[in-house]
């Protein structure tokens, strides 16, 4: 079963084939790729990679792509690490969102903004590989490598319209902890992601504007 909600259009088999080809071509860790049957109405692409986070020897991507460019790139490991890059209508998140590790239950804005299947696939590969090389799944949804520390512009800190929620925490060797924060406008629901220095997960009320 896919993790898509909303009106996504039919599954796009051609896109799944291209995504498979890009994985095979770009990623030497790919050990196996299975794409279901062309006429199966619940077809998905499964890609196994020969390394995982920590001691886990392998991981698997379960991928669905539809004709309206909605997608799931769900990564799973047998010992429980799960995360997912998504794009689809979701009442609790912007269309392009990320379900964080370790259990893919939370939703935060995705660092992937590009939309065509080929480019999204390349971006997912980069995000995952960068985090894998540093053996830190909390780095997957990170726009830059090494991660940027963006100091918040003063107007954001003092403004009344933006509410911020610190949603994840990453650490890069030797530097201070970095948090990914999502600023949500209570008036129109707009979300702006950013990195900030030194905040902890769950810091919400302390930083409410």
């Amino acid at each position, binding site marked *: *079963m*896919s*993790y*898509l*909600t*909303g*009106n*996504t*259009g*039919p*599954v796009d088999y*051609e896109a799944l084939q*291209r995504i498979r080809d890009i994985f095979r071509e*770009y990623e030497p860790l790919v050990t196996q790729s299975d794409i279901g049957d*062309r*006429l199966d*109405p*619940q*077809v998905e692409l499964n890609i196994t990679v020969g*390394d995982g986070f920590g001691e886990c020897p392998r991981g698997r991507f379960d991928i669905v792509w*539809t*004709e309206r460019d909605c997608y799931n790139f769900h990564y799973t490991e047998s010992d429980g690490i799960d995360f997912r890059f998504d794009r689809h*209508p*979701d*009442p*609790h998140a912007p269309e392009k969102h990320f379900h964080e590790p370790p259990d893919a239950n939370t939703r935060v804005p995705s*660092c*992937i*903004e*590009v939309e*065509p299947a*080929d*480019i*999204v696939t*390349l*971006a997912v590969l*980069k*995000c995952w*590989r*960068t985090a894998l*090389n540093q*053996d830190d799944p909390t780095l997957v949804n*990170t*726009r*830059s*490598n*090494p991660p*940027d520390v963006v100091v918040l512009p003063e107007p954001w800190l003092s403004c009344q319209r933006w509410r911020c929620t610190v949603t994840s925490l990453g650490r890069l060797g030797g530097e201070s902890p970095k948090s990914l924060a999502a600023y949500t406008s209570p008036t129109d629901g707009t979300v702006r992601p950013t990195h900030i220095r030194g905040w902890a997960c769950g810091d919400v009320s302390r930083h409410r504007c």
Partner: protein
Amino acid sequence: MYFGWELYVCKRNRGPYRIMPADPIETYDDVNEAAVADWTNETTTRERIKTVIRRTTEPTPASEIAEQARASEPVVRDELTELTELGLVETIDGGQGALYKRNDQMYIYQQVLKLHDEYSEDELIERLQGLKQTLQDIRTKYHVESPAELAQQLDPDDQEGWDDHTTWQTAQKNLYLAKVAISFYDARKMVA
């Protein structure tokens, strides 16, 4: 794009701290820009235009296709003219200049050829029955007659319901394509 070639502690070789030259660590300011750069480096302009137009189902100006394909507008116009002559693209005369979209009939024909590659006639008939059953099961489950009707009654976060909605749309498309492919097998017997 910059590749750092520094030595990296490879976690697969932990234990007696061996330092291994691992895969180069790629650095980038924005993963989106880096992915676009990879795409343009690894594909030809022609391939990118084809990739974009294959998914263009609404009449679209060349400038927009050029932007999506990271190509110049004159090159896009040339390529699309050629693809129009081959029947793969439809050119529509808009008031402000030509608009382009994929040729849906040709798209369907290509799908049929792929089905013929992958399934025998008997397999297609078997699949057709399976698809009909899937559609019937979903109709019965929700007591509605179309995906649009189903969409109206679903809560925005009803994951199983929306999954069935996607399955319904996919099964419906596949059903039509399977029917055309079966007709093509029949027609071929007549003209052979």
